[in-house]
């Protein structure tokens, strides 16, 4: 009689096995949460970075030709299309870094001091190879990376967006 009742219940081994499988599944499911959150954050960052680049390009385009700095973000813009790094200079080489301006933006896409930044904008002007006079299109390479504390030339950032802009300022 007692034996019958004992077999009707789950044995400890069965329960342990069941718990083990359940734990394995749960761990797999919960392990996906950080991945999902990270992907979501990346998507947000990419949207924000695209917005920053769009705003910066608009600002650069809106800078009158006589101005040396843009109005909204204070980015130096060469008045001579021939100034900037040579075409042969590779990104992050010494010649490139020397001509790169760096700015920080917060999560709202507004310019802030570097310590408070979430996104780092690197602006490099590239010499227009076909320009023979100061006039002509100014070439600029814009790169937004995040987090802002990371220098994209020394450490790989967690994400980046790059854009090339030609400014025909009048």
């Amino acid at each position, binding site marked *: 009689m*007692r034996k019958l*009742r004992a077999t009707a219940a789950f044995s*400890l081994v069965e329960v342990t096995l069941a718990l083990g499988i359940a734990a394995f599944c749960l761990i797999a499911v*919960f392990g996906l949460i950080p991945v999902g959150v990270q992907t979501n954050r990346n998507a947000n960052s990419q949207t924000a970075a695209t917005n920053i680049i769009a705003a910066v390009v*608009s600002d650069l385009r809106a*800078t009158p030709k006589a101005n040396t700095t843009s109005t*909204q973000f204070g980015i130096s813009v060469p008045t001579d299309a021939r100034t900037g790094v040579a075409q042969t200079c590779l990104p992050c080489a010494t010649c490139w870094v020397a001509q790169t301006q760096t700015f920080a933006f917060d999560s709202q896409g507004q310019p802030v001091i570097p310590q408070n930044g979430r996104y780092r904008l690197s602006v490099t002007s590239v010499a227009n190879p076909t320009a023979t006079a100061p006039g002509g299109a100014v070439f600029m390479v814009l790169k937004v990376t995040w987090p802002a504390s990371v220098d994209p030339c020394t450490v790989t950032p967690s994400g980046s967006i790059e854009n090339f802009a030609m400014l025909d300022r*009048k």
Partner: protein
Amino acid sequence: MPSDAITAVASDVACGVLLGRLRRDVLSRLCVATACRGKAQRTAKRTDGFTLAELVVTVGVLVLLVLLFAQLLKSAATVTTLGHKQMDADAQARQLLDRMAVDVAQMVKRSDVDYYLKSSAIGAGQRNKLFSGNDTIAFYSAVPGYYPSSGAQSPVSLVAYRVNPISTSARYNKLERMGKGLVWNAVSTTDTPVVFMPIPVASPIPLVELPNPAPNPLPAPAWPAIADSGSDWSDVEGIGPQVFRFEYYYLLKGQTDPTTSTTYAPILSDIPWDTRINSCCATAGSTLCCHVAPRGMQDVAAVVVDIAVIDPKSKLLLDAVDPTGAKLRRLNGADGLPPVLVDFVAGITPGQLLAQWRAALDANTVGLPLPAISGIRVYERYLYLSPPTLLTP
């Protein structure tokens, strides 16, 4: 072997509270199977199942774990929701500002066409057009629009933006864009084509800007509905359903006065022409540098647009505490009082208006629910104007 098994099971179940009880339980169960049958018989009742106390403790631990995981899920959901809110607002702002950038870049910049623009100019005969709260802008742009079903389509549309001020409209307090495709002049008897000066777009032109002698009767605006806050617009689309505040001003070029050679730096202004260059006004017949009208927008380098966007989830939160929309109207000034998200005033520096808006939202004098504040985002974009090519003197 039993002792080994016990150790293995015990180390598997890493739950401190239960450890002692389980070990006892395991011991008694194993005893049943092996040597100490006498002991098992003595504790026969124990082997039948778990006691209530054991179950209570087990369920308690389970509940604790579930609560922990629920917390984890909740915080993950909060982060995701906040991210989605920001993305909703960002996406809305991006498509709107990109559309505006195209419209403004393609603006028809000729001194023989009229513009409907804000201006704080108060000189004699100058059009003073200031908006408390949300602004309205209208201009010709070389972009496609909603054309009439007949007539020869011209490449020019009349483009206008405003936040709908009509409380009965489905687009009330939402940004709308008019894209009125225009037909060529003299081909249609029913549709209004591009009109040239002295026929104004929306508001009457002061006498000073009209040719002398002034036409009699004075030409009436071609599309008076644009200037009328009580009129519905035609050929319109709700381009920014989440945008409830729209403000713009101008970035004026740096210029040199041709008479005195004084150099002026670029400034932000709410007058679409440079009022600083006045020296040549004294010279008889010289109107080239002395402006009292936009004159082909020749002094304007860019139109600076500021918008405030509330994402749909935050809008629902806001609607729950504010079903009449009074708080939103207080923010954008649709109730007729000066808006909390302030208007442009002369003398502000780049980015200052946006900073003032954000400070006003953070100060929360309107009494918005806190989660809704984080869902309101503000944007500023400099929309550049390509230089005028077809200027008539």
